[in-house]
């Protein structure tokens, strides 16, 4: 009887560690999620080895074929100088994705650390950090990024830095909120009660349990950062014109949108598809980790 009655409530919660086969099975029932992963993997492929995906170069154009509409030969058509727009999109992935990754790493690294310190230290440190975060939140990130780029100079690296800096505040805020809620959990109090030191509690309990929602934010932020990087590129703060960059591609095509709509719409649509895919993946991650 002693152990038997425990079966009353046993086995109602599914285990956290699910077999990989079952995970794959679940994935197979979510075609949109699978498609999203394929999109993201393909685009990473573009960034790593663009030559594998297109036989055209990003710069060489055929002036005679200026503004050819999309065809089997030129999937996205060609631009004013007759450059293959699909090739330019493929090569552009490298610029845009590198900048995005850098931006998210900066925001995640700095933001998480700041949020952890603020939430764990509490008191005056917390208040001071929060007020500074307030200020960063008060200036819309695109505007802040524009100002930072104007100071640092126009380039893709600086765009990455600017976007990263302007997103630190949101990471710090989420991390701090998580830390504050984890710190009040019984298991943290229990750890102190068992004689675990402050640093031990922070590293063993607080950080791991706070990180999951910040990681979810990072996944979401990748999409947002791609948009921000491309937006700044669109406004002309990024790589100088001959370089392929997604925002810049759209901006270049925009002047001819009335006559040759594909020149801006197709690269833009590729960008939108990537962002939608990352959003979809981050949503499913958040659903998985909601307890």
């Amino acid at each position, binding site marked *: 009887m002693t152990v038997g009655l425990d079966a009353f409530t046993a086995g109602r919660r599914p285990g956290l560690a699910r077999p990989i086969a079952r995970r794959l099975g679940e994935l197979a029932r979510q075609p949109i999620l699978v498609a999203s992963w394929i999109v993201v993997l393909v685009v990473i492929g573009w960034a790593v080895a663009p030559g594998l995906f297109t036989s055209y170069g990003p710069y060489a154009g055929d002036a005679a074929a200026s503004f050819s509409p999309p065809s089997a030969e030129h999937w996205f058509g060609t631009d004013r100088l007759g450059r293959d727009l699909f090739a330019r999109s493929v090569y552009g992935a490298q610029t845009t994705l590198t900048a995005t990754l850098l931006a998210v790493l900066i925001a995640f690294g700095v933001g998480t650390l700041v949020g952890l310190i603020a939430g764990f230290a509490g008191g005056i440190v917390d208040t001071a950090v929060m*007020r*500074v975060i*307030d*200020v960063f*939140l*008060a*200036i*819309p*990130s*695109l*505007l802040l990024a*524009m*100002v*930072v*780029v*104007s*100071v640092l100079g126009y380039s893709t690296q600086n765009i990455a830095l600017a976007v990263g800096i302007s997103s630190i505040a949101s990471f710090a805020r989420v991390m701090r909120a998580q830390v504050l809620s984890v710190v009040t959990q019984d298991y943290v109090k229990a750890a102190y009660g068992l004689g675990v030191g402050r640093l031990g509690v922070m590293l063993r309990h607080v950080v791991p349990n706070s990180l999951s929602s910040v990681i979810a934010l990072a996944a979401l932020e990748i*999409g*947002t950062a791609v*948009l921000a990087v*491309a*937006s700044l590129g*669109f*406004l*002309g*703060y990024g790589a100088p014109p001959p370089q392929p960059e997604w*925002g810049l591609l*759209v*901006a270049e095509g*925009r002047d001819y*949108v*009335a006559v040759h*709509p594909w020149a*801006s*719409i197709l690269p*833009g*649509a590729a*960008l*939108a598809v990537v*962002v*939608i895919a990352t*959003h*979809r993946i981050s*949503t499913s991650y958040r659903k998985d980790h909601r307890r």
Partner: protein
Amino acid sequence: MLRYLALKIGRALFVVWAAFTLTFVLLFVLPADPVDLLFDPAEVNSVPPEVRAQVAASYGFDRPVILQYLTRLGHALTGDFGTSVQSGRPVVATILDVLPSTLLLAAGALALALVIAFVIALAATSARRPWVRDLVEALPSGAVSVPVFLSGILMLQIFSFRLGWFPAFGDEGARSLVLPLITLAIPVSGPIAQLLVRSFATEFRSGYVTTSWAKGATRGGIVVRDVFRNASLPALTIAGITFGNLIAGSVITETVFARQGVGRMTQAAINTLDVPLVQGTVVLVAVGFALINLIVDLIYPLLDPRLRAALATG
């Protein structure tokens, strides 16, 4: 209550002051030589040293940084942010010129975004078939994923060039406002809709809704009488984010549609490194943000009796 008020106003003032200081550091202290920024980048190297010195003196760049800061801060407190380098006119007047156009665009887009968000939330709440609900719930995420410059260009392409329903550029008349408004409203509606969908769903599962079912209420009645108010309150908490999205969105929307406005002016100011104008704009935006949050902080207690009670005793 007074304490609460004082705290909130103090916080708003702090944000504005800090935004001023931050931009001062970014724009006047960090650049190697702020005088460089005052000249056209193409000509900066050919400017004679006397002229530079004269310009530096007239802007006070020859004085210690802290004095420059205090002078600028003092002027800013009286509403003087200096003169725009490009136009030579006062910064405040330059901004006020284009502000109405942006306010109109932003207010209209916000109203439309709210309508879209509530329609999505209500549709998701009342949808009975899971696949319909999934579809509706996916809309906000799509709305924030499509870059504004793409949706703007698509709008232009379809409604101006193909169908000819609306003018493509400019800011004359109400018809020219329609496309920018929709373009801006879409990304702004996304986060609001996501929040509303979640809070409608949460509130719909809450205990008092069960009580209402048990009273004999109908589904529509419950949504209108119980869920709507409780679920709408959280939307106020992202008012600041919404404001930021409106500003950021209007920069791009105004560029795509070649509309006059604060956003496009800011872009021009940054392109020409018109430092006083950039600082003025950033501080103005911070003022707007602080005001919005202050208003939210003040009306929230009116809408939620629990908070009201907490304040009355505190």
